[in-house]
């Protein structure tokens, strides 16, 4: 049973903006030479499987990206969206009750690749914070060829983060603790959420997109 995922609701609208045809089933392969002069092709994914990027539970599943996608969808019930743009609303009627680390994971499918979008509530030295960031389901080398933006707006203010997705070789906790994403205090998040109704509800609208740099 997922511990805290019930507390957050996502209302998402996906904008499908595919600029050009997407190639599917691209498995990178490398040729390497070992000290014995034996050369061979290695399917990186199969030889060096990734850990399941679904954090929170102690899921120890490993596999290549294709297998992990099935696993995330079927076993962890993670939502998958097509397209490189997205727009989510994170709503919580009583944000003070969010536990130490509450988070949401959504998958994005674009450019023939998959990305993990994390949204998380946590405490940084007793200050409640929210962080959103993206990780690439693949190796770091390919991850650096992408960039992404995340934008929060509301109440006459807007904050935008532009970054490079980290590879899922880095655990989600590593990325979170390095604060490599869009990070705001809960106080500011509530300010973004403020409307005329005076409620202290969290109503964060986060939108963004991914693109390939080169």
């Amino acid at each position, binding site marked *: 049973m997922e511990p805290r995922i019930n507390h957050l609701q996502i209302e998402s609208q996906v904008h499908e903006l595919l600029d050009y045809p997407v190639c599917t089933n691209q498995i990178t392969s490398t040729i390497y030479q070992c000290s014995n002069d034996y050369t061979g092709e290695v399917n990186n994914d199969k030889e060096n499987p990734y850990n399941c990027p679904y954090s929170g539970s102690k899921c120890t599943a490993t596999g290549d990206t294709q297998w992990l996608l099935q696993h995330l969808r079927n076993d962890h019930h993670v939502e998958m969206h097509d397209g490189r743009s997205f727009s989510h609303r994170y709503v919580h009627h009583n944000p003070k009750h969010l536990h130490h680390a509450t988070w949401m994971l959504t998958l994005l499918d674009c450019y023939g690749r998959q990305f993990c979008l994390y949204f998380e509530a946590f405490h940084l030295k007793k200050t409640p914070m929210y962080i959103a960031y993206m990780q690439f389901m693949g190796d770091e080398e390919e991850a650096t060829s992408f960039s992404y933006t995340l934008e929060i707006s509301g*109440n006459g*203010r807007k904050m*935008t983060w*532009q970054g490079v997705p980290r590879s899922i070789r880095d655990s989600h906790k590593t990325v979170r603790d390095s604060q490599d994403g869009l990070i705001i205090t809960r106080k500011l998040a509530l300010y973004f959420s403020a409307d005329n109704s005076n409620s202290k509800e969290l109503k964060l609208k986060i939108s963004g997109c991914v693109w390939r740099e080169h």
Partner: protein
Amino acid sequence: MDMDSMESSTRSVQNDEIHHNGTFHFSSTKSHGGGGAASPAVVTNIVGPTATSVYELLECPVCTCSMYPPIHQCHNGHTLCSTCKVRVHNRCPTCRQELGDIRCLALEKVAESLELPCKFYNLGCPEIFPYYSKLKHESLCNFRPYGCPYAGSECGVVGDIPFLVSHLRDDHKVDMHAGSTFNHRYVKSNPREVENATWMLTVFHCFGQYFCLHFEAFQLGMGPVYMAFLRFMGDEEEARSYSYSLEVGGSGRKLTWEGTPRSIRDSHRKVRDSNDGLIIQRNMALFFSGGDRKELKLRVTGKIWKEQHSPDSGLFMPNLSS
């Protein structure tokens, strides 16, 4: 009414003109609708020269502040405010008799019907208030002078905007810039030494207005952070006609903030504590600084612009009903 007996050394009375801590005068012909139809139990409002004498009676003999309920008196009838009563050790400061717990209810009731102009009448405020709501209005009066926006010290200087701009430039030696865009580098060789708040203020002059750009290093619960935000030298309503953006970046990452400048009516501390600006944790700021990441070399760029639409419509208001 014979005013001579009310003279004090600091004031003089001439005809209908009353000088009181400065100058104001108000005519005694102010009438209240239906004054003649008021029931006998209601005292008609006190205006004109009488108002001043009653107002003076409401001044505490010890601290000279205006007295508010509960107003006390001694057996001989000398009045005292509740704050001072605590401090005089049960002795009337006027006649040295022992103080009881006698309340001067009559004076409190007379004050209810006292009406006085706002103390900022000479700066343009046309309003007149009952004694008990005057103070509240004066704390919010739009004509009241602005406080010096210089953060850090508690500079008590007040005045209008042109005066404060000169004051910032000449007395606080603040940098002045003409134009609506900026590109600053904040450099600190040992960023670990940020103990208390360290901050910088720059004033921008554009669109015929003045803006204060604050850059500050301080401790937020989560550790050391840097914050940059803009304040408008004027009132909140006018501040909403403007927007500004701030951007920091480096190493393939960029953080952008867009918002509405706060009025300098909101203190620097209040804006800072509301997190209403660009906030970066020190680690991220050092990351943006590049190099060995031990030195802070943060480049902050930004611009100010005037919103085309009406200030009320909120450019970035999300459609929360969808």
